[in-house]
C-alpha cells in the first residue's frame, strides 16, 4: 500500500519544473501586466461612451484594467499553488532524463509546424506534409529510412482521404 501511495503522490514533480518556480511565475505575471497595459492604452483611443451608452472602448477599458490588476496582484503576491487536482502519476511518466533533448524536440516541433504552415499554400500539401512528417519523425528519433517512407506514404494518404471527403487541400504549382 505504501508503495502505491508514494508513486501516486504528485508533489515530487513540481520543484523539478523550472517554470513553476516562484520567479518564473512572477516573470509571467510581469509580461501579462505589460500586455494588459498596452491593451488599456490602445483601448483608451476608442470612444469610451457614445450616444447610446457604452462605446467601443468601454469593455476593453474595463477588461484590460481588471486583468492588469490581476497581473499586478500575481506579481506582488504570487499566484498561490494550483488547487487543480493533480493527477496520480505513475512514476514512469517522470521527466525524460535528457532535458536538452526534450527542449530540442519541443522547439523543433514548433519550428517544423510554422514552416509547414507557411509552405502549405505555395508548395502544396503533399510536398509540405511529406517534409513535415519526415522531419518530425527524424526529430523524434525514428530511423531515416522509415521516416522518409512514412512521409512519402502518409502525405498522399491524408490528401486522398480529404479528397474523398470533398475537402480540397492546396496543391503546388506542379499540380500535386
Amino acid at each position, binding site marked *: 500500500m505504501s508503495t502505491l501511495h508514494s508513486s501516486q503522490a504528485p508533489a515530487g514533480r513540481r520543484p523539478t519544473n523550472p517554470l513553476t518556480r516562484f520567479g518564473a511565475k512572477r516573470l509571467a505575471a510581469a509580461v501579462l501586466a505589460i500586455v494588459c497595459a498596452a491593451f488599456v492604452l490602445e483601448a483608451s483611443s476608442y470612444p469610451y461612451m457614445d450616444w447610446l451608452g457604452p462605446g467601443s472602448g468601454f469593455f476593453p477599458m474595463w477588461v484590460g484594467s481588471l486583468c492588469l490588476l490581476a497581473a499586478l496582484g500575481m506579481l506582488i503576491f504570487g499566484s498561490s499553488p494550483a488547487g487543480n487536482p493533480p493527477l496520480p502519476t505513475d512514476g514512469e511518466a517522470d521527466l525524460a532524463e535528457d532535458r536538452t533533448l526534450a527542449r530540442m524536440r519541443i522547439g523543433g516541433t514548433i519550428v517544423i509546424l510554422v514552416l509547414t*504552415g507557411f509552405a502549405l499554400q505555395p508548395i502544396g500539401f503533399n510536398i509540405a506534409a511529406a517534409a513535415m512528417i519526415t522531419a518530425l519523425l527524424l526529430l523524434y528519433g525514428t530511423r531515416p529510412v522509415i521516416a522518409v517512407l512514412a512521409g512519402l506514404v502518409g502525405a498522399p494518404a491524408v490528401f486522398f482521404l480529404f479528397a474523398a*471527403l470533398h475537402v480540397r487541400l492546396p496543391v503546388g504549382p506542379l499540380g500535386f
Partner: protein
Amino acid sequence: MDSTFGLWVQGISAALEPSNLLFAFVGCIIGTLVGVLPGLGPAAAMAILIPFTYDLGPVPAIVMLSAIYFGTQYGGTITSVLVNVPGESTSVVTCLDGHPMAKSGRAGAALGIAAIGSLFAGLVGTFLLMVLALPLSSLALRFGPVEMFALLVVGLSLVMSFRGGSLLAAFAMTMIGLMLGLVGLDPVQGAPRFTFGNHNLFDGVQLVPVIMGLFGISELLASLEERSPQPITRKITSLLPFKEERKDAALAITRGTGVGFALGIIPGMAGIVPTFMAYALEKRVSKHPERFGHGAIEGVASAEASNNAHAQASMVPLLTLGIPGTATLAVMMGAFMINGITPGPFLFVDHPEIVWTVIGSFIVGNVVLFILNFPLVHVWVQILRIPSRYLHVAILIFCLLGAFTLRNNTFDVMVMIAFGVLGYIFKKLDWPTVPLVIAIILGPLLERALRQSLELSDGDASVFVTTPVSAGLLGLAFLVVAVSVLSGLRPVKRLSSRFSNPAGKADQKP
C-alpha cells in the same frame, strides 16, 4: 403533448435512416479513435474532425457530429483508464479510480461501467432534454437581448467562481479570454479593435484554432518532455463489474446523472464542477470511502455518468438560446453553423425537423457507441500500443489541416501554433485554460447583448432592472459573486484539497 411525441418519433426515425445510421457508426468510430489518442480531449478532437462533415449536408453532418461528440468523450475515458492521461479536466476524476482499477487488472470492468454509466446518463439526459427543449425554446423566443445579457452575466460569474487553482490566476485567465474576445470589428460602429491592421483578425480570433492550440498542440508539446506513459495492455477479460458491486455502481450512476444534468443546464458551468461534486457525493455516501482513489468502481461510474449527463444538459442552453457552455460545444456550434444551422430558439420554430433529428441522433449515437464498444474495446487498446511518435505526427497533421481548412487561411494555422505555445506555458504556470476559452465565447455575446439592449431601448439602461427576468438573473449573479468572494471559495477549495491528496485517508486505514 401528442404532437411533441410525434416530433420525437420523427426525430428518432430520421436519425435511424440507414444513411444516417451509417454516419452515426462512422462518427462513433472516428470519434473514439481520435478521442483515444493521448492528450487529445473532446474539444480538440472535435475541432480536428470538423472537415470530415463539410460536404455531408445538414442532417447527416449533425448526426455524425453528435456521434463524434460522444465518441471522443468515450475515447477520452479509455485513455484515462489505461494510460492515466486525461484528455480534458473532467476526465481527471475518471483517472482517480479508473487507472488504479486497470492496474489491478480490472480495466475491463472500469471501461464497462463507464460505458454503462455513459449510456444511462446519455439516455436519461436526452429524455430530459426532449421534455425540456420545447417549453424552454418557446420561453427562449421571449428571451431578448436584455435577458440574454443578464444570463451571460450569470454564466461569466460562474466561470470565475467555480474553478480549481489560484483565485487570481483563474480571474486573470477569464480576463485574458475576454480581451481576446474583443479583438475584431466592434459591434458598435464596425470599427476594428486590436487588429493591428490585420484583416484576418476582423472576425476576431477564430475559436477552433485557439481550442486546437490550447487543448491539442500544447498537450502534445508537454508530452514530448516525458517518456511516453505506458498503457496497461493486459488482456481485457470481462467488461462487467463483480456482482456485489453492481448495486453500488447503479446507485452511483443514478446520482451522477442527476448532479451532472442539474448543473449542466447552467451555461458557463464547466463539466469539471458537476463531475467533482458527483465524485465527492459518492465518497460521502459510501460505506467505504477509503477505497476511493484506489479503484472504487462507484468513482468511475459516477464520474462518467455525471460527465455524460452534463454533456446532454449543456445542449439545452445551446439549442434553446444559442449559448455554448463548454469549449467542446463551442466547436460543435461552429460546426453547426458551417453546415448552415444556427442554434437558437428560431431553430425550433423554423426547422423543428432538424432539432428533433439532432436530439434523436443523441439517442442513436449513445446506443451505437455502447454497442460498438463491447466488440471494439480491444481495437482501441491496440491503438494505444502504436509508438507515440506516430500518433504525435498524425495529430499534428490533422490539427494543421483542421486550422487551415476552416477558412483556407494560413493565418489561422499560425494562431493555432501560437496558442499551442501559450497553452504549454499556461500549463507550466498552472494557469487554467478552460475559463479563458469560455470567456472568449461568452464575452462577445455579452457585449453584443448589452449593445442590442440599449439600441432597442434607445439608450435607456434601466431596462436591465425593470425587466423581471433580467433583474432576477442579475440578482443571482450578484449572489454568486458575493458568495464566492465571501466564502473564499471554501467548497471548491475543500474539494480540491481532498483530491490533491487522494490517498491521504486511506493510509490510516488500508
